[in-house]
């Protein structure tokens, strides 16, 4: 594994290794001293062409706990906002000796373009590219699900996960569909037909337009953020109608299975896709997702950066 661009690039075994490594790292940083020397002397760049405070600080905390040097390179006030091309940015980062670049970008495939080795040689981690993928989010979601619902197993065999909301524009949904099914879970997408992509019929998932039909049978309800500008683009009539059919409210929460959990990648629109009492209920693991995010991102950084790439190692 040289980069983390898409869940498609990792096998089930590699995904399990990431989750297990995250478990060990969680333990190793559980004590009074949260910092490990593992990535001392390594330079990691946070290249955030699109604002995302929570993902950026999660990666930053992960890198710092492993003693890496972190450089933040954000959209506002940087050369990115002055029309510099991605290629020029990449070559600048190469010249600065970045060992890894964590990139958030509004363009699908931006991370893949950056990993193009004619531009730079360091590892590239996709922290969200347009409406394509957000692999570290899916890994932390799988980690959270496994901790709650799987006791002593590596995979998510036998679990049923509902992903609810704007699938069409969601990088979180795309990465989660790939990862959760790779780990053996059954996934059902719940959305209005306008917010499902053409071609979704060939995804390895079930689809329903009726949230109430599956609410009592799923182990995990993963709510997606709905952006209000989708209304003006004619995807649904108004917020009230969206909430009524696709929101998680007290009534639906009550009908959920015993031990089932509620997730949301954040930031939430309380009162739109999720009511406040659902977000704060005992079933909600939303705050825990944030904590787990740091551990999973530490695991990703460790596995990508701690060693040389395969084949270059010295004999044991």
């Amino acid at each position, binding site marked *: 594994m040289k980069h983390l661009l898409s869940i498609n690039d990792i096998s089930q075994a590699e995904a399990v290794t990431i989750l*297990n*490594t995250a478990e060990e*790292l969680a333990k*190793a940083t559980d*004590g009074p001293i949260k910092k*490990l020397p593992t990535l001392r002397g390594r330079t990691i760049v946070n290249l955030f062409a699109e604002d995302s405070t929570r993902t950026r600080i999660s990666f930053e905390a992960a890198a710092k706990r492993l003693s890496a040097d972190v450089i933040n390179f954000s959209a506002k006030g940087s050369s990115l906002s002055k029309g510099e091309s991605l290629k020029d940015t990449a070559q600048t980062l190469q010249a600065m000796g970045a060992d890894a670049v964590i990139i958030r970008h509004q363009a699908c495939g931006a991370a893949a373009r950056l990993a193009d080795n004619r531009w730079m040689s360091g590892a590239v981690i996709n922290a969200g590219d347009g409406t394509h993928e957000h692999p570290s989010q899916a890994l932390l979601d799988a980690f959270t699900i496994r901790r709650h619902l799987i006791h002593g197993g590596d995979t998510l065999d036998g679990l049923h996960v509902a992903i609810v909301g704007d699938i069409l524009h969601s990088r979180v949904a795309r990465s989660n569909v790939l990862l959760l099914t790779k780990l053996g879970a059954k996934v059902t997408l719940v959305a209005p037909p306008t917010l499902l992509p053409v071609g979704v019929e060939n995804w390895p998932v079930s689809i329903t337009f009726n949230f109430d039909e599956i609410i009592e049978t799923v182990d995990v309800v993963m709510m997606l953020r709905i952006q209000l500008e989708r209304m003006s683009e004619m995807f649904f009539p108004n917020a009230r109608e969206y909430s009524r059919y696709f929101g998680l409210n007290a009534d639906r929460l009550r009908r959920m299975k015993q031990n089932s959990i509620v997730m949301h990648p954040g930031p939430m629109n309380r009162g739109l896709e999720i009511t406040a009492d659902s977000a704060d209920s005992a079933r909600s693991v939303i705050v825990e997702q944030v904590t787990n995010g740091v551990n999973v991102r530490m695991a990703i950084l*460790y596995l990508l950066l*701690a*060693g040389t790439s*395969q084949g270059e190692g010295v004999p044991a």
Partner: protein
Amino acid sequence: MNLALPAPDIARAIMRISHEILERNSGSESVTLLGIPTRGAYLAARIAANIATIEGHPVQQGTLDITLHRDDLRMRPPRALMPTVIPPLGVEDRNVVLVDDVLFSGRTIRAALDALGQIGRPRTVQLAVLVDRGHRELPIRADYVGKNLPTSLHQSIKVQFTELDGVDAVVVDDGGAE
């Protein structure tokens, strides 16, 4: 491949180490055994079993993965982390005995001391190894040694345990093969 230590010799060496640990620490109450994965963990388990038999009650025993503290990470492919299991009484104010199969450069033990420091502050830290093959690169020595095996640098030493390898043995390879 030369058999340096057959199974009966290994069992005797482990038993001797177990007695020495008890003697030095006046029993097992203050002792916490921490094996370094992979083979150090199996060795620690055997020592713990001996001590339980001798003392009539179990000793505090766990594992300590040192990967995150290694100083050669950049020279090897990344490796999966092994479990670290700290027994219920922790390490604070305990006589911690680190257990590993082979003592060579001393770098693994240096990393283990760092990993231990992350967890707490033991009263003493002691070291038990099955084989000391020499060639130290750091000022580290073992408190309990099963067997001293002087080797040359091109030789390699392999400790085999029944649990992993189907047989108990210490073999010396005269190089060239690896």
